[in-house]
């Protein structure tokens, strides 16, 4: 474990921890997004999918949850520590510093990250635990007596502020990944040298896919396609 302690102590090591946990996050959001899109197939399919995750796959799901919780905790802890360090590295700020090439995405990693953290907590309390239940639909069951998560999704996204919050959060998730999917490969030192190192077509594609894939669900409800 001494190698982990060494990593944890250095700035590059902390960034490597962020990159690995961030990539775990990217893997998760891609799978999660595909799962969510089943809402367009209909209530039966979606509730059956949820029942499968809570029934036969429950142990697997719990294993993944533990990995994700550890990843989020490490990611946020490293983000916090590195941000403090960066602040301390420039005690007297410039009167004027003009950003030249940094993207808005890169400059919103921190505040966007805070929004994502708030979103993640809200989202778990909303659809996973049901402590936040704006549509009063969490405890409903469908015709087959299954937990009717489909009905909860539809009822929730019909509430304007719930949809608005999810849609804004997904914009920031897309931005976070537009920078993060690109930068994490450089943090890990696995990106190939390039004549234009700031170009990032693949991460732009990942960002758009993730943003669109998640946003389609509230949009589908608002448009009445999912009802």
């Amino acid at each position, binding site marked *: 474990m001494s190698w982990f302690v060494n990593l944890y102590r250095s700035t*590059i090591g902390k960034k490597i921890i962020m990159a690995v946990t961030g990539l775990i996050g990217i893997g998760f959001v891609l799978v999660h997004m595909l799962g969510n899109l089943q809402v367009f197939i209909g209530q039966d399919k979606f509730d059956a999918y949820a029942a499968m995750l809570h029934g036969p796959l429950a142990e697997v799901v719990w294993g993944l949850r533990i990995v994700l919780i550890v990843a989020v905790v490490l990611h946020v802890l490293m983000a916090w520590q590195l941000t403090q360090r960066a602040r301390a590295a420039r005690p007297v700020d410039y009167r004027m510093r003009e950003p030249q090439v940094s993207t808005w995405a890169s400059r919103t990693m921190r505040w966007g990250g805070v929004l994502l953290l708030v979103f993640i907590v809200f989202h778990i309390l909303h659809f996973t635990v049901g402590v936040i239940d704006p549509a009063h639909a969490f405890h409903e069951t469908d015709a087959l007596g299954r937990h009717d998560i489909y009905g909860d999704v539809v009822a929730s996204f019909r509430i304007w502020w719930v949809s608005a919050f999810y849609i804004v959060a997904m914009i920031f998730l897309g931005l976070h990944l537009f920078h993060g999917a690109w930068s994490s490969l450089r943090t890990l030192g696995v990106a190939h*040298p390039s004549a234009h190192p*700031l170009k990032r077509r693949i991460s732009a594609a990942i960002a758009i896919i993730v943003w669109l894939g998640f946003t389609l669900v509230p949009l589908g409800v608002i448009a009445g396609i999912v009802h």
Partner: protein
Amino acid sequence: MNLILHVWRQAGANAAGRFERYEARDVSADMSFLEMLDVVNEGLIANGQEPIAFDHDCREGICGMCGMMINGTAHGPMKMTTTCQLHMRSFKDGDELWIEPWRARAFQVVKDLVVDRSAFDRIIQAGGFVSVNTGAPQDANAIPISKQVADDAMDAAACIGCGACVAACPNGSASLFTAAKVSHLGLLPQGQPERYRRALKMVAQMDLEDFGHCTLFGECQEACPKGISIDFIARMNHDYLRAVATQREETAAGGTG
């Protein structure tokens, strides 16, 4: 042309600083930025005032001494150009310029625009060298090096240690500097024996000097007067990760011969 300058004046490391307003009159477009400051200083001296302190040495873009922030851009508006090589034709009559020193905790202001960059020297001392036994030099062409490797190593070695990367970085990170120094030796065959040890030691020293971390904003690459690529940062990270993964305690056990 006539310009208005707002220059950061600070008597010493622990003194409070402030911007002072100066007028630079009849500036020729052919002057370099430092020559323009020289003329302003002559005026100050003639008036019995303290001239503006700024660092400079070669005035030909190779020593790395002359860095300053000009209107929020390291080394001013011209890409891949040091302040001494920046000419006044990059500005126009009536321009108002804000001139500040590099700002980083590791780069303490010595006076006005002069900062102490010895943190960079200590990073180099930690590992930016190749250990060779003294004796007769071997034939220079005895070690074959591919053109691509030689070119990449030269690209990294172009770093003049001016500190613009730290100055332009929102995090005050010295990653581009350290990466260039780690890489230019790490790429070459002569640098291989100490490659991973070097990455560990130089990164450890970089951290000790209170620089920030790398977010890969890309600002350093844009500010660098030698156009050093952030790909070298990826390379340093790679060497560092490999070094941490394969690191073992250094021991001096064994026969004494």
